[in-house]
């Protein structure tokens, strides 16, 4: 087994609150690895430490054996790590095309001065943009402003922006939050499809989603890992059941 991401004793304290406490975790190349846990378990905090938004209180994050602990978040896409936010996070007044184009361009830049050249110089960026937009099923909306899309479509756009970076590792924070059941199903299918191309670290609250698609599941509660294993192992675990029923 080869791991692409390795977390060593990662912790985060907010004053007296220990939001994440000594978490260890390894993500295998090509797998979907899920982190689940009840509300307030520390999932988002954990996610934000990996993705460079929050500096950890202690511990290390290794990506392909390189120490990336505390790297500024703008550096990560250039190394092959892209993330999708828990709340929809797009560029509202810009078109769907511009939203995705910007992301593709960011990681496709060949020289430091590419951003001063005419837009028409970047044919490959334009082609890649259209391909990604069609992959998430938004081709018919390509010239609409992001703010004009439905909530479900905005989630898809969010995903398209994330994919624009051509990542190797995808970090997803509750991609199905606030989606209607059909849209949730669509998103789950998309994630499954994406896992053929990318390694995915998925943060989720809803158990049934991760059960179907994950290879490994890590369960957090009160900032600590309480269990880890295959979906069926986790399903059987008494500790996990207790945590989710609020008896943990």
């Amino acid at each position, binding site marked *: 087994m080869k791991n692409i991401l390795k977390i060593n004793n990662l912790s985060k304290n907010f004053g007296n609150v220990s939001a994440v406490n000594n978490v260890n975790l390894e993500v295998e190349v090509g797998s979907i690895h899920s982190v689940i846990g009840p509300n307030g378990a520390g999932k988002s905090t954990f996610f934000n430490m990996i993705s460079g938004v929050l500096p950890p209180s202690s511990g290390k994050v290794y990506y392909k054996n390189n120490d990336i602990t505390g790297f*500024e978040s*703008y550096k990560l896409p250039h190394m092959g790590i892209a993330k999708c*936010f828990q709340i929809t*996070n*797009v560029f509202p007044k810009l078109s769907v095309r511009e939203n995705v184009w*910007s992301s593709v361009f960011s990681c496709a830049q060949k020289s430091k001065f590419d*951003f001063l*050249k005419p837009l028409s110089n970047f044919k490959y960026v334009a082609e890649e943009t259209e391909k990604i937009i069609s992959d998430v099923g938004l081709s018919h909306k390509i010239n609409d402003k992001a703010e004009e899309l439905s909530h479900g479509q905005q989630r898809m756009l969010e995903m398209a922006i994330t994919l624009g970076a051509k990542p190797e590792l995808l970090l997803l924070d509750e991609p199905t939050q606030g989606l209607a059941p059909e849209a949730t199903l669509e998103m789950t299918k998309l994630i499954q499809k994406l896992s053929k191309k990318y390694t995915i670290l998925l943060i989720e609250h809803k158990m049934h989603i991760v059960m179907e698609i994950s290879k490994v599941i890590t369960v957090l509660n009160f900032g600590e890992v309480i269990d880890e294993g295959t979906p069926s192992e986790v399903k059987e675990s008494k500790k996990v059941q207790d945590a989710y029923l609020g008896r943990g």
Partner: protein
Amino acid sequence: MNKYTIICLIIFILLGPFLLPNATITEMLIFGIVAISTNIMLGYTGMLSFGQALFFGTSAYISGLILLAGFPIFLAIPIATLGSFLISLFVGYFCVKREGLYFICLTFAFNQMFYFIAYVWTEVTGGEDGLVGITRPEFIDTQFSFYVFISILFLTSLYLMYKIITSPLGLIFKLIRENPSRAEAIGYNVRFFKLVSFSIASTFTGLAGSLYVLIHSMVPIDQIHWLKSGDIIFMTLFGGVGNFLGPLIGVVGYIWLSDTFSIIWARWPLIMGVIFAIIVLYFRGGVSELLENLVKKSQSYFKKNKDEKYIKN
């Protein structure tokens, strides 16, 4: 820019000198550079700087001093512009560390600092009296040649700024305005690009300042005062931050109105205040958006009339 705006711009450049006094029309072009460049930062990147007079004024002083020392204008303009660029990197480096209100306050504080230096350093800047006795070089001695000279620099600046905002850089600025944390997450160093935007705006503003000395052959100290920074924001918002040339309309309107009213009534800034309040309250897109909507409405009106005629025939 569509072809109609370009035609309007050309008509304005050609007719302007016949309709307005030479000092007024050249001042409009010079402040046109200021407002359009300020809009790259304000409208495109979403950063409100209350310190742009710092760059305008400092550059005017540098250019004025070089001319007074007897050096040619072809040294004065580039050196003053380069000077504003360097100062903008220094000032901007600190300012872009903060956002929102704190950013505004920082730019304002730097403006005050530079104003104070100009105020007390009387041997160099002339203090309250300003820098006087600058002579215009011979080749731009006449009103006509001076106007041509300023127009060329104006159009060149416009062209360069247009290139910038239509390049990927312009799109990155909009990303920062729309959603800085997302821009960061897709790999853009937001603080760096904010500094770029700040520097572009300030450098062009500096260029304009270096030209300003030529109009009245002097640098009055109020060109570096924070009230001037307020004027710059006023002109930009008045014209409209929604499109590239919008601020130019604001400049023309502002300078024309202030010229007209200041003769009639000494308390004319009061009228400006009222106009500003109305714009901010009811026409967020400024005059340019107002015009755009009018054009759209009249177009659909004429189209409707035409359609009706068709039906009758």
